[in-house]
């Protein structure tokens, strides 16, 4: 998802009997559906895991602005441009909500930014794919935001209060994103032959990367159990992926587009679609930094940070000067 392959620091899950009283009270509170707030006691692993997860999620929102920002100046109409601009601005907002939530765990914004820029912290693999045509704006909104929603809706119930509250705000806005994407796809799919071809091509390129967003198969996902016990992960990767496929296939049929998977078939026995797994080797390569746009994405973030430095420092100096003048006048 927007946070993939989060390494758990715990050494497997302890039973309540093995826990010290503090930790047991903590786990029992979570089991009872209670929320953990910033100043409450929490195990070190819970804090570290959450910083990684929320930080990676925040970075994904910020880096996620780049593939779409790519099309703001080339949107086909002024209205589409205004809508895309609003959407990209929302992504910045989502990043900020999440950074704030992570900061309540004791990490600074600067530290997280530095760790993104140096490549130490990751962001979702999906944003390392290029957006080649306007139809990609449709596919990103429909599939990428659609996949994100699958993961974010349950996270509104996550155990960490500030994270859950950020998710509530994000989910309210995310639905606009998916619908604007589907709206673009409808327009393209019902347009000229060339437009329909572009729409199909966008679906072809984004289908498997979208499936990868949910992370590796449960059988290969070694960090899930502890995160699920802590309720910082609410569903398994495969559960969410299946849900996404089940909801998306009929939408593609409505558009008259073909999902690029010859094995895709509704299974009467399970009531779900059977589908092909994405190429996990490609996924691990993209996470490692070898995707089509990894270098460009990080370079763009580094450039923004470096070139914005004089602004950040200048405004801080100005604020200090104003403060000292005000104090001198009093």
């Amino acid at each position: 998802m927007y946070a993939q392959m989060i390494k758990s620091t715990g050494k497997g899950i302890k039973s309540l009997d093995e826990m010290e009283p503090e930790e047991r009270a903590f786990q029992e509170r979570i089991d009872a559906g209670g929320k953990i707030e910033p100043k409450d006691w929490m195990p070190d692993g819970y804090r570290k895991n959450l910083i990684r997860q929320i930080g990676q999620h925040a970075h994904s929102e910020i880096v996620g602005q780049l593939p779409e920002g790519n099309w703001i100046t080339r949107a086909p109409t002024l209205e589409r441009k205004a809508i895309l601009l609003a959407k990209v601005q929302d992504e910045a907002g989502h990043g900020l909500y999440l950074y704030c939530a992570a900061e309540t765990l004791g990490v600074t914004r600067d530290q997280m930014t530095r760790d993104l820029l140096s490549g130490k912290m990751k962001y979702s693999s999906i944003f390392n794919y290029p957006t080649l045509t306007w139809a990609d704006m449709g596919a990103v909104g429909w599939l990428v935001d659609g996949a994100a929603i699958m993961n974010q809706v349950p996270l509104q119930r996550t155990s960490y209060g500030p994270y859950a509250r950020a998710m509530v705000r994000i989910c309210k806005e995310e639905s606009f994103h998916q619908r604007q994407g589907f709206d673009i796809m409808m327009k393209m799919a019902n347009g000229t032959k060339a437009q329909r071809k572009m729409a199909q091509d966008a679906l072809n390129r984004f289908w498997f990367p979208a499936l990868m967003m949910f992370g590796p198969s449960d059988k290969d996902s070694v960090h899930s159990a502890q995160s699920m016990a802590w309720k910082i992960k609410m569903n398994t990767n495969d559960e969410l992926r299946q849900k996404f496929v089940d909801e998306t296939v009929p939408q593609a049929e409505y558009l008259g587009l073909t999902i690029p998977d010859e094995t895709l078939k509704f299974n009467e026995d399970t009531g779900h679609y059977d589908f092909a797994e994405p190429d996990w080797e490609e996924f691990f390569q993209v996470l490692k930094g070898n995707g089509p746009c990894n270098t460009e994405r990080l370079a763009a973030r580094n450039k923004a940070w470096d070139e914005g430095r004089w602004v950040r420092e200048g405004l801080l100096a100005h604020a200090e000067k104003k403060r000292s003048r005000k104090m001198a006048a009093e």
Partner: protein
Amino acid sequence: MSSPESSEYDGTEAAPHGKARSTEWPLWEVFIRGQHGLSHRHVGSLHAADAEMAIKNARDVYTRRNEGVSIWAVEASAIAASSPEEKGALYEPANDKVYRHPTFFDIPDEVGAM
């Protein structure tokens, strides 16, 4: 590595960031009045160099969809907060003062609504 997207920036290596900035902009807590007649409610936080910028940023981050008619921004360092350990001392004394609730008193039906 070449990329299918055009970019004017040709830097291929991440720049060093070890000591890029030692001071961050201060953290501000943001409170929004949703509509006239309601009190301000905490909605989140943000970083800003000064109060004016905090209000402007709060407008952009927290009221993009008409969520408010008024914003307060308070530097987080200026907020005093109770700690979870004080929970018992602060709130338990209220538990045995049930007479503070109107339902403590039985008023006969014939008196009517009160």
